[in-house]
């Protein structure tokens, strides 16, 4: 026991390959999102109809690009090819990462705050509060989440804010259910009982006694939710309901690329790979964090 504690949490985290690989992928995504304007070689919306459907350089179809370069040596090179409108795929992927990171972070955090608050209240107070909140969760869980998100966005209108709002409205229950159970278990423990006997106000007990003990679980849930949010945003874009056409999204790229799968399969493949890598990275990070931070799993 003493030996185990001598290894600090940070050290333990850094030894877990899941945390390392997942963390690296997430860091890369974050860098792409923050510096998209500098990293992307070209404007993601810049059309060049003369250079449409150029294959990525390693695709084996680089002849067209070389031919282009022979005619016009100043023509921009499309490292990952170009789409039907001649837009640069690499630049679109980088800017798509920005949209994905914004949607994932904001919606996961907001869903986390709403779900955690309601879960804490239900778990701590029990009784009628719990019955009411649990009933609402039951009702929410009766809808297919994706369908609910699609219907919500179609009703409140497309755009970044409504996509985030829809994800929060649909997914807060994921946090609420887990936090409620955990808060219920914590409330039964001695430290909460003694805090109650000391006459501490409920708000103080919830936020500074119970919440810190639920925190490791929350970090994991937020990482997993970020992965879910990226996919949900892509689904909404795919159906044509996401962010307005001005912003570049991976889902939108997939939806457009789907129309040209035989002619230019990379248009669908590349944003798909970007999404798969992000989702796997977030999952690995969440899984690793849970294993290292949760005392029950670690035992």
């Amino acid at each position, binding site marked *: 026991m003493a030996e185990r504690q001598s290894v600090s949490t940070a050290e333990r985290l850094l030894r877990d390959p899941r945390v390392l690989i997942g963390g690296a992928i997430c860091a890369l995504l974050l860098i792409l999102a923050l510096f998209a304007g500098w990293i992307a070689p070209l404007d993601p919306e810049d059309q060049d109809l003369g250079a449409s459907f150029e294959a990525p350089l390693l695709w084996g179809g680089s002849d067209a690009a070389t031919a282009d370069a022979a005619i016009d040596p100043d023509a921009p090179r499309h490292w990952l090819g170009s789409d039907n409108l001649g837009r640069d795929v690499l630049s679109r992927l980088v800017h798509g990462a920005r949209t994905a990171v914004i949607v994932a972070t904001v919606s996961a955090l907001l869903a986390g705050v709403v779900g955690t608050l309601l879960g804490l209240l239900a778990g701590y107070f029990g009784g009628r509060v719990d019955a009411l909140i649990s*009933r*609402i969760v*039951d*009702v929410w*869980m*009766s*809808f*297919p*989440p*994706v*369908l*609910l998100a*699609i*219907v*919500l966005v*179609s*009703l*409140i209108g497309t755009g970044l804010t409504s996509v985030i709002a829809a994800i929060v409205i649909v997914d807060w229950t994921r946090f609420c259910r887990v936090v409620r159970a955990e808060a219920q278990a914590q409330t039964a423990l001695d430290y909460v009982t003694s805090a109650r006997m000391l006459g501490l106000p409920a708000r103080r007990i919830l936020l500074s006694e119970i919440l810190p003990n639920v925190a490791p679980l929350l970090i994991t849930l937020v990482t997993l939710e970020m*992965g*879910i949010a990226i*996919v949900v945003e*892509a*689904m909404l874009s*795919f*159906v*044509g*309901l996401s962010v307005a056409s001005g912003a570049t999204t991976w889902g939108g790229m*997939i939806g457009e690329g*789907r129309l040209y*799968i*035989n002619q230019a*399969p990379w248009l*669908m*493949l590349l944003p*798909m790979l970007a*999404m*798969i890598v992000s*989702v*796997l990275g977030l*999952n*690995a990070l969440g*899984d690793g964090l849970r294993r290292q931070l949760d005392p029950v799993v670690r035992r």
Partner: protein
Amino acid sequence: MNARYFLRRLLLAVPTLFGVALVVFVLIRVVPGDPVAMMIPPGATPEDIARLRAFYGLDKSIPMQFWLWLQAALTGEFGTSITYKQDVMDLIAERLPVTLELGIVAMLVACLLGGAAGIVSAARQGRWLSTLIDNLAAVVQAIPDFLWGLIFILLFGVALPWLPISGRIDTALSEQAGGGFVLLSSLLHGRWQIVGSDLLYMIAPALALALPVAAMIARVLKASMQEALASDYVRLARLKGLSGVRVLLSEALPNALIPAVSLSAVQFAFLLGGTVLVEKLFSYPGLGNLAISAVVGRDLPLIQAVVLTFAVLFIAINLAVDVLVLLLNPRLRGGSH
């Protein structure tokens, strides 16, 4: 069978259903503002609009509107679809069997794949095969059905065009196959050509739906198998000299099955929810595809009916799960608590 538990569970579904109806009503009637504004044809006179409002009961108070709407919903009167110009319930009745057949086949695939992987992984614990299966399951589970669908479209649509990736059945057979539960009825009538075509078209969408669920089943089954394999009765069976396979399948498996079954039943509801996008991806003519067309066409009567149908399906499945778990678990069966 604990009748009182079942009754309590059934009664709990009533407020949930009511809540679901309320949410759908609020979504459809209150959020988008005036539903009539979306239905009126250009050039309608104010009298026309007033008549339309009265026809839909929109001139009454909101609680009254909800009451009227609830009555209509309970009798299955959702009106006429705006985009399809057809009775909404007829459309649902036509599409629901398609989704159910796809969902059930996908679930069977998930149980078979996940079950086999879980058992093998538990049996080979500590060997390379077990490690491989565990890591594979973690990766497969992390990728949601929508992404699997996209992967299969690229795989079977472009790279290895062996499988159809669009539609429900070969167009040459569709006339003969008709509608409804095509797979079931052609199985019963021994029309193997239709069965074959139906299954062939089902492979890609069903796999996309099944893979994440299969991985989840494999992980849960493996964990509970390990627990069962470490227990006294399995050790006793081993001491009695029963063969390894026998111990695994007839001693450990039945006891390890309960958590896996209750999880897979819950996952079945999520799998059905996944059909919404997967059917869209594969142009599979089911309820999910209908839902997307309804949303894109802003077809409010159809949207509310589809959402309600899915919700009722979810509630019914969850109810069935609870009963199933009760029937399977001898500790919860009988006795009153």
